[in-house]
């Protein structure tokens, strides 16, 4: 027998009578940890919901009489407008770039996701600047026609329709990406068979392509709708009153937490219904490709006329969502008279980076531990809880902020009371509310899912056999983590960090409501300047946000370029 097997001659590690998995009511570690995370995430949500039955001193009935109808009708206009625009352009562009060959296709294929770098409120500022009476558009129009003030009608961007346009321009890439992925995933064989069964190129879209991709497109659209309902920056700048602005106003202008929380509950009802629909629709994605053969998609050539039309169609949303606003933004910065000083910009950038880094560190640590314990213990209840913890991402920032204010306010009051009882009447006032802790907590709740999903996906790619092999080769769990998991997860960790950082950077309502006094971020400053009609000043911070936001979008572009299953490269260009 070998003497080189370096095995310690001890029996240790675990008590003998503990069964490894089933047959015990003791909850494994992964369960306990996810329970804590869930508790932290849903506390603000529960705080909001806890006000459902509370009296509001008549404000609620006042709201119902005066405002609720407006909120509902505006939200409805947004939902209908945004969904139809994103469906048409998101799905249409995806089909064109996957199925047809036309000038600019290779570029458009990934350029079409660029609007993801544009926060809706930045779009709102730039379009307002562009389309207002003194803006270049109307000035040009007057110059051409000689019309004067009030002698012509011009569409008002600061209207529900305008808000729907801006949201659709910023959010259509979600539908585009989902639809494109679904179109790419379908087997060429299915499409070719449909041709032999008498489908024309065009009817193929309606009879095969669209039905197969429908669940993905529906899920993408529902996600866009959730984002639209959650939007605060654009609608509040346009003074289009929706639930989010209503909650903000009720909290600050009326100082009525109960009514704000009740409005928030109504909003949650809508958002979570959309979320449920989205989950359900994802679950419907049951068609498996029966053919596992993938060949590069043969793209149909288009006649010159149609090819131009295709290029034009794809350019429309890209122009509306990125090219035009980016140009306007650049020119605003270039021509600005009322610019922020460099030191102010630096201060804002530092604040934003600080907030982003702290949140990143916290979310990634928690996310990593959560994924790790989930994988190790695989407790079904833990999984369900984890799904709950991901709710934060679906919850509008305003609602999280209001919920946190309620919770932290209560904690502060409790601490003050306790301290006044013990430390001789000392009442320190606000302890957690209005501190960095509050903002970081809010952002962490909102963006936990952003980090958790790539981490989970990254972990899923590591086969359990690899861990088992490492263990039988003598590696203890810390070494496995260091030598196997971390290197294999590097990519996922990096992209998770980048996504969280940029989401925190763009986040407006939660940061604005929860931030400490005088702690301004780029997004907050841009919003404040814009709402006080200093669009020139807002352009600087907005541009920084957009430029930073381009990073992950470019990363996404590269992924998209490689995402065709079965073919590393697309040679058919």
């Amino acid at each position, binding site marked *: 027998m*070998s003497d080189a097997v370096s095995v310690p001659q001890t029996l240790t*590690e675990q008590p003998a009578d503990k069964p490894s998995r089933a047959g015990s009511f003791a909850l494994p570690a992964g369960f306990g940890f996810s329970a804590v995370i869930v508790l932290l995430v849903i506390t603000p949500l529960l705080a909001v919901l806890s006000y459902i039955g509370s009296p509001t001193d008549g404000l609620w009935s006042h709201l119902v009489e005066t405002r609720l109808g407006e909120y509902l009708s505006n939200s409805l206009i947004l939902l209908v407008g945004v969904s139809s625009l994103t469906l048409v352009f998101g799905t249409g562009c995806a089909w064109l770039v996957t199925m047809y060959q036309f000038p600019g296709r290779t570029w458009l294929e990934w350029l079409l996701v660029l609007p993801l770098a544009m926060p809706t409120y930045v779009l709102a500022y730039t379009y307002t600047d562009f389309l207002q009476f003194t803006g270049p558009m109307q000035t040009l129009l007057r110059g051409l026609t000689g019309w004067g003030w009030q002698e012509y009608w011009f569409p008002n961007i600061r209207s529900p329709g305008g808000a729907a346009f801006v949201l659709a321009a910023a959010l259509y890439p979600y539908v585009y990406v989902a639809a494109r992925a679904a179109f790419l995933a379908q087997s060429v064989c299915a499409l070719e068979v449909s041709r032999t069964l008498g489908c024309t190129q065009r009817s193929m879209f309606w009879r095969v392509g669209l039905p197969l991709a429908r669940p993905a497109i529906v899920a993408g659209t529902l996600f866009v709708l959730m984002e639209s309902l959650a939007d605060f920056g654009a609608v509040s700048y346009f003074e289009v009153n929706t639930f989010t602005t209503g909650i903000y106003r009720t909290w600050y202008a009326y100082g009525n937490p109960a009514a704000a929380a009740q409005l928030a509950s109504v909003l949650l009802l809508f958002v979570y219904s959309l979320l449920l629909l989205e989950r359900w629709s994802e679950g419907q994605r049951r068609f498996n490709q029966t053919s596992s053969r993938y060949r590069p998609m043969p793209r149909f050539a288009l006649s010159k006329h149609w090819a131009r039309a295709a290029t034009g169609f794809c350019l429309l949303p890209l122009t509306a969502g990125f090219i035009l606003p980016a140009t306007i933004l650049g020119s605003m910065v270039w021509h600005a008279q009322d610019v922020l000083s460099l030191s102010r910009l630096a201060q804002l950038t530092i604040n934003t980076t600080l907030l982003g880094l702290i949140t990143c560190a916290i979310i990634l640590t928690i996310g990593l531990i959560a994924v790790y314990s989930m994988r190790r213990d695989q407790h079904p209840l833990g999984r369900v809880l984890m799904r709950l913890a991901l709710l934060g991402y679906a919850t509008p920032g305003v609602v999280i902020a209001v919920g946190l204010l309620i919770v932290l306010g209560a904690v502060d009051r409790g601490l003050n009371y306790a301290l006044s009882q013990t430390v001789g009447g000392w009442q320190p006032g606000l302890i957690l509310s209005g501190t960095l802790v509050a903002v970081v907590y809010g952002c962490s709740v909102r963006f936990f899912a952003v980090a958790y999903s790539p981490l989970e996906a990254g972990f899923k790619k590591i*086969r359990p056999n690899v861990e088992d*092999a490492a263990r*039988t*080769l003598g590696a203890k769990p810390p070494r496995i983590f260091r*030598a196997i998991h971390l290197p*294999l997860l590097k990519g996922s960790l990096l992209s998770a960090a980048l996504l969280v950082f940029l989401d925190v950077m763009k986040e407006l309502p939660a940061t604005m409501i929860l931030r400490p006094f005088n702690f301004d971020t780029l997004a907050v400053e841009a919003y404040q300047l814009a709402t006080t009609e200093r669009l020139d000043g807002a352009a600087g911070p907005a541009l920084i946000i957009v430029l930073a936001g381009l990073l992950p979008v470019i990363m996404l572009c590269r992924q998209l370029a490689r995402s065709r299953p079965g073919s590393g490269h697309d040679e058919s260009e």
Partner: protein
Amino acid sequence: MTAALAFVDIAHRFGELQALQQVSFQIAAGDILCLLGPSGCGKTTALRIAAGLERPHHGLVQINGRTVSGNDGFVVPEARGVGLLFQDYALFPHLTVERNVLFGLKGLPAAEQRSRTRYWLQRVGLWDRQKAYPHMLSGGEQQRVALARALAPQPAVLLLDEPFSNLDSQLRYQVREDVLRTIKDMDTGTAALMVTHDPEEALYMGDQIALMDKGRIIQTGTANDLYCQPLNPLVATFFGSVNRFSSDVQAGHVATPMGALPAGHLTDGTEVDVLVRTEGIGLAAQEGNDPAPNAIISTIRRLGQISRIDLQTLPETGFDCSLTVHVLGPTAYQVGDHVKLILDSNLAFVFPVQVSGDSQSD
């Protein structure tokens, strides 16, 4: 001599599912035991228990006489000194071939690590690919790296989980031979436990074969034991096709179309199943009336090395059944020929008809 690996009365369950019951076996140093069975029979669970990746609910696991799982405690996989070879190889995708092999050698002097890595990579013929990453290798090469990685730390026991099932058939024979020779050539006395669902593979590789079904070991023995002395119908049918008759014991014998078989210790009147391997029936041409024919040939098919002949028994035998016979090479018989059946009683087995799942036989 203590066994390299011993299971003593192991039982394990997942929730309600009883995955293993009363599983006991021993593997001597240098030997290979194949756990053979259909999927879901618990063989992979047994392997994971040996590795320490599952903790059994009951029973002892001993490696070289040392209890690694039992009432006194549990030794974690990293401290057991077992090597594991997976169906999907489970190479570390981010490490080179060389560093994959080095992974298990941590704690040894650096020079020793290098020389062992070199030795093993040369042994499996992949020293020149040491800087390659796993995805740059073919399936067979990956399997050899995995073998080198598992054996480099000189484990007391090598565990193989369906190690050849991802390889195409040509390569499989080659790799199987390589692995067998490598294990047998080791001077460290490494024992191997291999899990497979392929009877041929088990017969080829195993010094001992343990046939499993529904979490239990049904029979353990050499390839010859299991083929020629199966303990129950399941074992008999697992290793090849059989003809099956129903009959009963009369005067210590069981009647078949080919003549009577001794019934062993079975009492008269016992209902029995008779299983006769398809190569356990010989054919003799009929000349005149001697010997008396007892079957007529209904179809003949050439299957390469063997011929398959289907027959129908004649009424005179008292049986009305069809039989299948395998004969080596081509056959001179033709459809419609009357033939005499000759029984090889070594390849015919009598089992009492089982009412419940439990087996008492022979």
